[in-house]
């Protein structure tokens, strides 16, 4: 992400959500991004996912600018290159873990049979090999998030984006999830951007950044550090 600027109009005022952010995430590197609500974290995430075009600057993935993608190229980028993990999981309730993990591949023209074949190893990788037919209601919160992680990885992405992935989990499960995300990024040599409020992420990520009022700084800022310490 190079010199990214994004402005919004709200109530007659211009709000600069992201102001000149430059950030490079290398292969296999998991970066945690902190910041208070409204600091622009989600905006940054959306731009990294190709869902929002910056007003200035560029997002480059493997040297290719995704900010200039057409709508179709943007869709293909997300389908094939990006794995997304959500705080609310967004699993299909009542559908099996296997169906949930496989669903994403249907968008890219795979048959369900092939999608199941692709999803099963990932579910085993995240430790849910014995829960393939369980529905989200039959899984714990931590297990649900692991299904969501498997879903994010089923398309063998080259970039992992996570939006508060531990927001719905207790501290034990949060730690497990963060460790898993780091392992996966390292294993696959995949850059990962983790938007979070979880203090544990600062220890389990490779690098930490803080976004405040649209400005990016490396490490935790003073206020956050104090909050975590307390």
């Amino acid at each position, binding site marked *: 992400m190079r010199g990214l600027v994004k402005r919004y109009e709200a109530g007659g005022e211009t709000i600069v959500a992201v102001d000149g952010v430059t950030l490079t995430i290398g292969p296999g590197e998991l970066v945690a991004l902190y910041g208070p609500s409204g600091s622009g974290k989600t905006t940054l995430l959306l731009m990294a996912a190709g869902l929002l075009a910056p007003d200035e600057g560029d997002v480059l993935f493997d040297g290719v600018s995704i900010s200039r993608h057409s709508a179709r190229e943007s869709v293909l980028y997300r389908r094939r290159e990006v794995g997304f993990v959500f705080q609310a999981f967004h699993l299909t309730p009542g559908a099996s873990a296997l169906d949930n993990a496989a669903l994403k591949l249907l968008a890219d023209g795979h048959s369900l049979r092939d999608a199941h074949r692709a999803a099963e190893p990932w579910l085993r990788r995240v430790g849910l090999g014995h829960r393939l037919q369980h529905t989200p209601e039959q899984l714990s919160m931590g297990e649900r998030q692991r299904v969501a992680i498997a879903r994010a990885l089923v398309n063998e992405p080259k970039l992992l984006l996570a939006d*508060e992935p531990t927001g719905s989990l207790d501290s034990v499960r949060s730690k497990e999830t963060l460790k898993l995300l780091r392992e996966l990024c390292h294993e696959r040599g995949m850059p990962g951007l983790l938007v979070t409020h979880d203090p544990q992420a600062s220890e389990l990520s490779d690098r930490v950044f803080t976004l405040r009022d649209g400005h990016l700084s490396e490490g935790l800022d003073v206020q956050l550090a104090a909050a975590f310490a307390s």
Partner: protein
Amino acid sequence: MSGHDVRRLDPSLFGMRLSGVLRIYRVRLRHHAIQELLAALGIAIGVALVFGVLVANTSIVGSARQLIDGVTGSARLQLAARSPEGFAESIANQAGRLRGVAKAVPLLRQDATIEGKDGSESIQLVGVTPSLLSLHSVATRSFSSGIRLISGGVGLPESVASAVGAKVGKDVTVKIDGRASRVAVNTELGSATIGPVAESPVAVQLLSYAQKLSGKRGRITQVLIEPRPGKDALVSSELRKLAKGRIDVLPAKQELAVLAQAAQPLDQSTTLFVAISAMVGFLLALNAMLITLPERRRNIAEMVMQGFDRRQILLVLGSQAVVLGTIASAVGIGFGYLLATTIYFQPPVYLATAFPVYFHRSVHVGTVLIALSGGVLAALICAVLPMYPLRTSARPSADAVLRDSGESGQRVSVAASKGLAATGVALVLGATLLAELLPSLTVLAGVMLALAVPCLMPGLFLVALAALAKASRRMPGSMLAVATIELRATATRSVALIGVTALAVYGSVAIEATRHDLTTGLDAAVTEYLDTAQVWVSQNDNFLTVDGFPAEPARRQISRLADVSSVRVYQGALLDVGDRRLWVRARPPGDATIVQGSQLISGSLSTASAEIRSGGWAAVSNVFANEQGLTVGSSFTLPTPSGSRRVRVAAITTNVGWTPGAITINTSDYERWWQTSAASALEVNLKPGVSPAAGSREIRRALGSAGGLTVETVGQREHSFEATAREGLRSLGNISALLLVTASLAVASALGAAIWQRRDRLAAMKTQGFESIQLLRSLLMESLLAVIIGCFGGACVGIYGHALANRWLTLSTGFPAPFALGEVQLLLAFAVIVAITMAMVALPGWSAAKVPPSMGLQE
């Protein structure tokens, strides 16, 4: 106001104040208005459908009850003539002198037509004497001045006066028995004077004037008898001696029993409509609850977290349900009343030809309470169900429920669907047995089939899903696979919607296809009945053709016409035998058709026709034959105006379109037994080359308008009769169409709401690479599959229900109804539901598919 007074106005229960309970609901409404509206909509629809049918049906029978109650007053017995010719007025005086008789009130009732400047109305002319006031009936309590007012003229109820444009002081034309007379309207009789009779098709005159007008001087048709207390049996016996087997001795309100018998098919089909409508409404309300189940569970979890105990939670939920149920039911009752007076309302023409019925909007308190309590009960069940997990101590952590995501996924367990399927099959088998062993209870079998429909849907749903899943597994990029996953994921909700669709299709297919059978059968019956002549001359287009007029003057005039080859006298009457008002049809021996071949059930057509022509034989309807235990060749006693007659059965037929049944004899027998040569119609055949239109014009010119006779070609008469038959059946068609449309709109709303509720997840799918068009395809496919599964299930049971209903029509009610599969009705039902549902789902579907991906993120 003291604090004590304030507390009394704000009572508390289980430690909670009423104001607090209501405030909780106000907050809920502010944040979940749409969900509450959806639940209310489901309840309101069910209540509207049920209430509308109940009011429309009770209004018809209720009107006659009001009229008969209104006139008979304290009378408990009656002498009733067996024909419109009546009996001597002196019988009333003799009856009044019998031991045990307190009062004997003579009446003359004649069917007539009133014509005013704005139109004409068929009415019943009632000739009364001041002695009627002694019965203190509702209609006469305030009528003492009215008696003077009608002297020398006629008193018209407000409804009739307004319909024909009659004004007090002006004349109207009264046509009776082929005679047309100008009569002054002396007064309009409102409800203040004659109570509920003010809305009835009845005109009142002094007896002497009515006798003069109808040419029946010294004759009456009815004597209302009030026995002294405890003397009913004695008086009844004395009256029988007086009647000498030529006049009927009956309870004063006997006509109600006869009407109830004639209206039985209507009552039975009402039961079916009510059952289907109630189930549709309940399933819709249940579906609305299912959509909001996670939110309701969180609501309960929040209350648990805040320290509410179980009783308090029940109080909060229960009070919300009572408020919602009451308001929704009230709205439903309003719409139901509208339905009853518009779409459901059809003037009961076929009953009105033989009974003094009219549409009187009678809404009984009981009906309102049934509708209201049904709606509140549905709301209570739907509100309390989410509490089910709290029934034991093994309840999920409230905290976990609060953290749960927005949607509910409820799979239908295989065990549950097997159990329901078994129940459904048992209901189908039970319905089959019931219809086979007790055909008269086939409508109850129809209700059982309606109950079977939602029981069978879960199993059908799972089978269909398995097939779809298998089919879609290998399809690349298939949104069918996505749709199948979503359907399975929300199985309970999908099954509820499929159940609604299936019920609506079942009801529509069974009712519409049966109606089509009936229409086809009645058309054939009418055509064959009328095809004996090219031109028909009668008093009016009453399809029973029972109103008499002097035959000879008209017959002679018509015979003299050059274009006419023959004129035959046709006679007909209504005759009460037990609780049946039988249609007596007397055919002249010269008619080509005596017994209608298309209506023959047993007997030989040629033999039966020859026997009836010879005299002493009759063709009888199967419903009458079954009741009397008759077979071809056996004999029975016919109570005629000239006394009881032994008649032999030449053939057994359908009811030829008249529910209580018909008897066909020849005119010679009729003239002797009814002691009249009056015609009910003249059948005219024309010379070769003369068209019916030309012939009827000639006849009309010859007769002029003085006689008040109607001249119709056979085509015109057929058209008019068929229209009458269809008129009587139109409410069936309206109800089935309404069921389809209502179910479609409600299902579409529920689907749309479910789609809308899923936007967060759709946004997440877009983030992961789904395009809007893919999401739209999967959403539409999901809706279409649900509707098609429901249609298919409903159609299968509907076809079977149609077969049972057809069997009931032919065996139990005796209607002519040749069975036809009803492919057109089937396809139409499918098309209506699919078109409406998909058209309505397309908009929220498209809107939801366009959801911005950012909606799936937290900030």
